[in-house]
């Protein structure tokens, strides 16, 4: 049986940990609240754009748009979006596992572009080519950074460094639910969906100019969206993980306090017995 002093020390230490996990939970909750609205209210834009592109593709040919031109894949590029920091439950591990699975199943040569420190740290020690890495993303993704990353990805694609680009990130459903997923980014393929009757569109200034402006923008928005979803997922995962940790700590404190009280009671009983025995011996 641990001594009372040991128990006291452990209770104190767990209480300290609990304070930290509770603070982290509240910080994550505040950050999540801030970003959550942006994620949800931002979704229609990307969806509408995909819709418009889908309709245009039904009537026009994307073939001469370099960003939409599929070609033989000599190297596939995977963009892995993870967090910079841990203590977010299974968030990073789930993403890394998904990336690992995809790479293992990939029969073509593949390379990674990592966004977030955790993914980079994991794959840096493994035999995978990392083309680019971005870290220190902050608490809310910056549209300018998303644009920079998207431009770089388009450049890698257009230069032929990679022939396909996929995004591996976590989609945000709720604070309790985030699911890692893989989306194809490049070449831009119109979303499968209702193939409406092809309409003859009037393009202004011209079809080439419109698509030439629309497709890069679409790519940028996809990257930005993925970053937003990933960030919201991260905060959600961290909040949930820290909530559980705080609960577990409370449970442990309760158990230890019980043992502590028991030990105290036993000590007192022992002392009384000693006093009584001493008194009896005197008689």
């Amino acid at each position, binding site marked *: 049986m641990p001594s009372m002093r040991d128990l006291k020390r452990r209770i104190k230490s767990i209480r300290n940990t609990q304070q930290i996990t509770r603070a982290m939970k509240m910080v994550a909750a505040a950050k999540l609240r801030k970003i959550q609205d*942006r994620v949800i*209210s*931002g979704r*229609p*834009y990307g969806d*509408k*754009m995909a*819709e*418009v592109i889908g*309709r*245009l593709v039904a*009537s026009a040919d994307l073939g001469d748009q370099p960003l939409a031109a599929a070609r033989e894949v000599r190297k596939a590029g995977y963009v892995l979006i993870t967090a910079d920091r841990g203590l977010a439950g299974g968030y990073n591990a789930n993403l890394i596992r998904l990336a690992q699975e995809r790479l293992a199943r990939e029969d073509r040569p593949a390379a990674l572009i990592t966004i977030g420190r955790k993914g980079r740290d994991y794959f840096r020690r493994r035999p995978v080519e990392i083309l680019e890495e971005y870290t220190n993303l902050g608490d809310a993704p910056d*549209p300018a950074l998303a644009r920079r990353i998207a431009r770089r990805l388009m450049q890698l694609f257009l230069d032929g460094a990679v022939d396909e680009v996929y995004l591996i990130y976590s989609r945000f459903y709720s604070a309790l639910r985030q699911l890692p997923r893989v989306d194809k980014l490049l070449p831009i393929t119109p979303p499968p969906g209702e193939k409406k009757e092809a*309409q*003859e*569109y*009037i*393009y*202004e*200034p011209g079809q080439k*100019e*419109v698509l030439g*402006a*629309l497709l890069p*923008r679409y790519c940028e*928005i996809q990257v*930005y969206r993925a970053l937003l979803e990933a960030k919201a997922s991260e905060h959600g995962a961290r909040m949930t993980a820290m909530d559980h940790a705080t609960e577990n700590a409370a449970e442990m404190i309760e158990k230890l306090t019980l043992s502590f009280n028991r030990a105290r009671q036993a000590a007192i009983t022992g002392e009384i017995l000693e006093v009584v025995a001493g008194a009896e011996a005197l008689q």
Partner: protein
Amino acid sequence: MAEKEKAVARGPFTMEVVTPERVLLRTEATSLIAPGLEGYLGILPGHAPLVTLLGPGVVTYREGGQEKKLAVSGGLLEVAGDRVIILADAAERSEEIDVERARRAKERAERRLKERTPGLDLERAEAALRRAVARLRAAGAEG
């Protein structure tokens, strides 16, 4: 059937303005004027399918007999059937516009363009000026 289609085409069209931040507007409008890259263009019910790039400017639309204005900083407009979708890089309703800020932005851009300090990104300064002017116009404060 043919009659019904005609009726739909003549009635008000659905107009949506969506930005990366939010759905700014979803309404029934009876006419629309938008800042196309090659000049302003008007959309009336029954317009042929059209896709055009938008520059910075003012979108004027008629909703329930009232004329309303938005400032957009550029984007894309699609007309398909009885729906008009504007995907704007950024957009604001006239009543949301911070006139003071827009005026300052305009003055800043004008000063930059006048001084022409070396290393000035001319294109960016001009775009900033056009955006500021568009916002002032949409807000009803002449730029």
